[in-house]
């Protein structure tokens, strides 16, 4: 058996300032297999791939390919060794031809000039190897995204690859295209290639992969044969739970939820703060119904890429729906934009803080007053005294660690940036606040603070939509949890049912 190990990684270590991304990860891939690399955010999947492809240099551990220890220092070196990677976004040039794209950077030359005939010939060979038939002289952009992805694969294995890494290759593909991709993967597997498959679509992993390796917190959790690993076990391993853990926690939370459930049912005839009916955005989330009542914390649970963030963005108007209705305070709303959402008392702390959240260049004070300023007319600017008072109040109340009110937010730590963002919305005193992964990338102490903040907001009658990949957090914080899988709402749990293992079961259950 040992001789058929194509890739063998032992005790891989890699640290970045502030985080140990990999702390002893093992990973083995055989020839002629598709091997899934699974793990939630921060598990170390992408770091492992980056070390393997020479983007990062490792701090410790061993990487063997074909029994020989390797040390790629750049992606080119990794490719020369036979390790090729295809990323989620197609890294090709749209207005060059298929052949040019495949040959780019390694054109065969004759008398110092590019030998175009050889370029086309080798491109055709590469395409045929995948069992595809397409015109190598056409521009790349004239083909669909799926085909472009195949061409990227063709380019990758044109280099006599031994190991092919597919990082989220199916995210932008529809069902039929996924089937085409799997046919190609199957063909390559039969040709003896080792394929590493990274995806958060569980159904796909179970459909195509022979074995699964799970990482968590930069460490190796285990290596399993796909057919012998029930889905719920896989999810428990990815989330770092044991079945016994789950059960002991249930008893503690059940009582609390019982009361909450009773409280909610009493108020259930009250008008919901926000309600959606068959709300959907094609390609992002399938139609869903969601009701948020006053003083209720509604959780959105599911694995990465299951559609949690997509729902949050739709509710705040950052994306526009393709169908369905949204009702706020009993009034149906269309043309929903962040401006209108804010005017209706909705606030949003996004998952990607740096892109949609804080404005790094501006000061703590400016970031905190930004939403309030934007809601007032230009001539009703908050006086500086008021701005400073607000900023200081929230710096104190949320314990934001900053040298001054005028410090640029970009220089603060992640947790403090998150708090500045929260302060921006608390200033507005919203009716409903949407928190997308509010505890991502911040330390344990700050996590606990944010959780208790959510609880206190709720006591004040605010409604919260709480998105998190940490199930224990969701169970503690929420009275109602909406469970998502593969861009679809698969169920709701509340009251006595609101337990980690119930949520995991729902995520795991395959299509009805």
């Amino acid at each position, binding site marked *: 058996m040992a001789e058929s190990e194509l890739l063998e990684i032992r005790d891989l270590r890699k640290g970045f300032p502030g985080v140990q991304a990999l702390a002893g990860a093992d990973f083995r891939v055989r020839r002629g297999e598709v091997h899934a690399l699974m793990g939630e955010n921060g598990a170390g999947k992408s770091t492992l791939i980056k070390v393997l492809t020479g983007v990062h240099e490792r701090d410790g551990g061993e990487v063997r390919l074909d029994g020989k220890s390797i040390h790629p220092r750049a992606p080119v070196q990794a490719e020369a060794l036979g390790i090729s990677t295809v990323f989620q976004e197609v890294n090709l040039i749209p207005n060059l031809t298929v052949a040019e794209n495949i040959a780019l950077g390694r054109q065969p030359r004759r008398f110092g000039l590019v030998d175009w005939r050889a370029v086309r010939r080798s491109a055709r060979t590469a395409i045929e190897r995948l069992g595809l038939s397409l015109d190598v002289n056409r521009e790349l952009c004239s083909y669909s995204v799926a085909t472009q992805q195949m061409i990227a694969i063709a380019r990758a294995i044109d280099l006599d690859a031994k190991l092919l890494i597919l990082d989220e290759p199916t995210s932008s593909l529809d069902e039929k295209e996924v089937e085409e991709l799997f046919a190609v993967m199957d063909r390559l597997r039969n040709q003896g290639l080792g394929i590493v498959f990274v995806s958060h679509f569980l159904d796909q992993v179970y459909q195509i992969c022979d074995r699964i390796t799970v990482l968590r917190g930069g460490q190796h959790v285990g290596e399993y044969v796909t057919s012998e690993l029930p889905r719920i076990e896989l999810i428990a391993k990815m989330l770092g739970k044991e079945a016994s853990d789950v059960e002991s926690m249930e008893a503690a939370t059940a009582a609390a939820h019982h009361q909450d459930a009773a409280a909610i049912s009493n108020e259930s005839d009250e008008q919901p703060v926000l309600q959606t009916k068959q709300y959907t955005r094609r390609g992002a989330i399938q139609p869903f119904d969601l009701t948020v009542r006053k003083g209720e914390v509604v959780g959105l649970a599911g694995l990465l890429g299951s559609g949690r963030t997509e729902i949050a963005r739709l509710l705040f108007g950052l994306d526009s729906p393709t169908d369905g209705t949204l009702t706020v305070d009993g009034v149906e709303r269309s043309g929903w934009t*962040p401006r209108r959402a804010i005017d209706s008392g909705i606030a*949003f702390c996004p998952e990607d803080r740096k892109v949609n*959240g804080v404005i790094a260049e501006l000061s703590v004070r400016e970031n905190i007053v930004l939403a309030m300023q934007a809601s007032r007319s*230009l001539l009703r*600017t908050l006086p500086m005294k008021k701005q400073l008072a607000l900023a200081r109040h929230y710096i*104190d*109340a949320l314990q934001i*660690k900053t040298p*001054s009110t005028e*410090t640029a937010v970009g220089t603060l730590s992640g947790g403090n940036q998150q708090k500045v963002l929260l302060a921006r919305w608390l200033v507005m005193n919203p009716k409903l606040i949407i928190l997308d992964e509010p505890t991502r990338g911040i330390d344990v102490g700050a996590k606990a603070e944010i959780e208790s903040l959510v609880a206190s907001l709720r006591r004040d009658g605010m409604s919260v939509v709480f998105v998190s990949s940490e199930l224990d957090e969701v169970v503690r914080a929420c009275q109602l949890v909406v469970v998502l899988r593969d861009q679809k709402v698969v169920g709701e749990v509340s009251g006595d049912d609101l337990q980690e293992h119930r949520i995991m079961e729902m995520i795991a259950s395959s299509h009805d």
Partner: protein
Amino acid sequence: MTDHSVPSTTAEAIQPSEASNRISVIRLMGSRLVWPLVSLAVVLVFNAIFIPSFFAVEVRDGAFYGSLIDVLNRGSIGIILAMGMTLVIATGGVDLSVGSVMAISGAVAALILTETQLGMWAVLPCALLVAVLAGAMNGVLVAYLKIQPIIATLILMVSGRGIAKFITGEKIITIGDDSYNYFFDFIGKGHLFGLPFTVTIFLSLFVVTGLFVRMTSLGLFIESVGANETASRASGIADKWIKIAVYIFAAFCAVIAGLIDSSNINAADTMNAGVFTELDAIFAVVVGGTALTGGRFSLTGSLIGAVLLQTLMTTLYTYGVPSDVAPVPKAIVIVAVCLLQSQVFRTHVRRLFGKGAKR
């Protein structure tokens, strides 16, 4: 409204006032205004040594004359354009069309003065209309159609001069004796408080703009949109309207500059009015410490930048450098100032001299 019961334990108390005072001093010293001021000082010291007459000021008919006054008078067009350009660049854009808008504005003014009896009181509203149309066109192309600002404003840069030529019938309209208008003449050549009237124009524009953007939240919104457009939109800022507003303001500045220019030469010369002024304005803004990538801006910096450029040009002319060669030394100074402002360059220099400072 602000009272929210959030879990608050009295954390390590910080003294924001004290800290912010220190920060504002550092901000002043550390980055923006220092290098353009130093460069201006260097040019002035150079003049003091080699061309002492540069600082000579004489009084004639109750008005001041001299090279320094000349710098302010001739520099007024550059300064006014730089004000508009600063706000556009702060949103992450750029406006290449200001030179052509100057030409249109001059053409419209000349046409009204020579072909009608309406005089100055028709010129001003028409000029304003030109500004709104030109700016709105640029702004809509950038904000709604998402065209790269450099391309969007290039359209008006190229077509604008054509429009101006169409207005004047492809010839230079001279505002001669028969169409002489005292008020129009005063814009470019009059004196107020002993100084050219153009100084009053640019100073009031500078002060009013500066007060308006800093006293209202407009400045904050402009910086916010320039620094992070998506996050600004998610905070409820009307990013599209902010963009349209700054392009209209830039066109407004260009229109004023166009009036000054045509008043100066008593004519509308659509071929030469405002040629390359857009580039000078961009230079002034960049030299003044506002990054082309958008975000934080400084109107004062741009003012100093524009004065520096004009001082340099006047110095070169005083030295007898022919006007077609003058851009070369100007370019050298611009590159030097930009390098001085660059953190990377300063680090390299420091390393070169072995001080081993880390930043």
